[in-house]
């Protein structure tokens, strides 16, 4: 290995190691707390004297005051995330097809206007969103959060899918038209199958965005039976004497589905979300 290569590798490690530690230390902390007893959680040791899985049992059996709705809250999280993923995917796919393949007049303007909304911080939009949901009587319904998340996820989703769909050869549409395909058949039989990697990536993106959401969930949902687990976790911090070991065990459980989803679709995520980043 030449000196230059060594130097460049060393620089890479110099950045990678702090980033890795920065990411892993909190996760290790969560794990450490979740397998510790209440007494030893704050002992400052790197490994507990008597590691235990009892905290997880407490969570699954909903045996703590803050966890009486654990299963319904995790179900809410899942329901909201999947609904957000599905609706975002439907909206963005149709929009990208219309803008990119059907060349609908004004389509690009609409997309650019949608992207422009990202200049407005989400926190600014929270109050108007709350007001709008109140007007339509959706407050405290899971749909309010789903609709809010679809609003936030759609512009980026449309943009990514539009870029990916621009890369499909135009001749395929023309060949399909000559073969007798209507726009709907073109969409279903040619466009969707070719867009699968990007569609999976966008579905995963919207799903994870909704799964991880706290601010809007906290604002739009307040009933114990409608809130997602992210908000439920926040309730742990309501008292001075929080059960940290149970909070962390719950957090660890809550963090596992995104890891599994990301792992399952990692190929699509990298390929799909970066597709269209540069013009091929």
């Amino acid at each position: 290995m030449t000196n230059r290569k060594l130097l460049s590798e060393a620089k890479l490690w110099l950045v990678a190691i702090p980033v890795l530690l920065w990411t892993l230390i909190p996760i290790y902390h969560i794990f450490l707390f979740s397998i510790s007893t209440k007494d030893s959680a704050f002992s400052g040791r790197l490994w507990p004297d008597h590691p235990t899985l009892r905290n997880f049992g407490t969570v699954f059996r909903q045996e703590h005051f803050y966890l009486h709705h654990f299963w319904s809250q995790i179900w809410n999280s899942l329901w909201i995330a999947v609904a957000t993923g599905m609706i975002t995917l439907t909206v963005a796919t149709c929009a990208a097809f219309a803008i990119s393949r059907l060349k609908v007049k004004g389509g690009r303007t609409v997309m650019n206007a949608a992207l422009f909304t990202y200049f407005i911080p989400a926190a600014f939009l929270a109050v108007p969103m709350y007001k709008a949901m109140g007007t339509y009587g959706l407050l405290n319904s899971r749909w309010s959060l789903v609709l809010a998340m679809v609003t936030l996820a759609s512009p980026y989703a449309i943009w990514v899918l539009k870029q990916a769909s621009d890369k499909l050869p135009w001749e395929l549409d023309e060949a399909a038209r000559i073969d007798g395909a209507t726009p709907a058949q073109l969409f279903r039989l040619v466009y969707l199958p070719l867009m699968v990697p990007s569609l999976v990536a966008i579905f995963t993106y919207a799903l994870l965005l909704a799964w991880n959401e706290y601010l809007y969930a906290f604002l739009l949902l307040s009933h114990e039976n409608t809130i997602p687990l992210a908000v439920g976790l926040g309730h742990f911090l309501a008292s001075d004497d929080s059960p940290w070991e149970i909070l962390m065990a719950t957090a660890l459980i809550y963090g596992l589905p995104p890891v599994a989803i990301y792992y399952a679709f990692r190929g699509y995520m990298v390929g799909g979300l970066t597709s269209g980043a540069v013009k091929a």
Partner: protein
Amino acid sequence: MASVSFSRIEKSFGATKVLHGISLDIADGEFMVLVGPSGCGKSTLLRMLAGLEDIGAGEIAIDGRVVNELDSKDRDIAMVFQSYALYPHMTVRDNMGFSLKLRKENRRKIAEGVSRAAKILNLDPYLDRYPRELSGGQRQRVAMGRAIVRDPKVFLFDEPLSNLDAKLRVAMRAEIKALHQRLKTTTVYVTHDQVEAMTMADRIAVMNEGRIEQLGEPLELYDRPDNLFVAQFIGSPAMNVFEGVYSNGMVQALGAYWPCEVKAQEGQRVAYGIRPEHLTLKEGGITAQIEVVEPMGAETETLVKVGGQNLTMMTHGRSKVGPGERVFLAPQPAQVHLFDAASGRRIG
């Protein structure tokens, strides 16, 4: 099968007019080649016939029926694209049967159609493969198969061989020609390659800057080009052309007198055209210097310099002269083409 008729077709992209009133009649079962340089409007004309491009002005008729307002699918045409345009997620069988599936034909009929086309093109062993598993030539055959399955009135080919290597192009050229002779379907074929045009066409329309420069049978275009553009576009190597002044049955140019049988006006400025194979070496001819000798086996292409201009000469067999040697050129007067230097139109 059907006739195709273009009548005063015009097309503009923004302020740029790309077709200037094209009129062209293609007979039932004819193999018509539209040839011309990039940007001459040949592909646009084909795409208008396919219904992929709006018609600015004029009428297009297939089998006597005006199709201007008809969707592509209702024109009863099939098109083969330069990039094959095969559906990457479908097998060869599904690609070829796609149009029949859209027409809601029953499975037996689709299978029969695909099988018939596959037999014609020797695609049987590849029916369950995906396009990515095929070579360029095989893909192009699948694209043709997809067109055959539709059993259309007119085949449209848009530079179908441009993506293939030279050897495969020659082979596919023969296959397309054989296919046309077998199916006798009216065919409109677009290419920028004049060799393809010459070898495949029943008639050729040479296009330039949105106009048809000349329409005719291949050898007619070769032997009697209407103008300088066609003269230089058709033929490989291209015709030698240089300007001079006509005087008493000769053209004075490049510091020499060049013989010709065609009569022009005394003192008229003309372009003197002679094909490379009509230039021979003969004692007492026009003095020239050999620049490059390119032996090609059966023939030899020789680049000679006369009066500062390079001319190409094509001779049968092997060359006995080498670079730097002085030789004497003898053009065959009966084979000389004269064009008016100002208008570029043929004289005589």
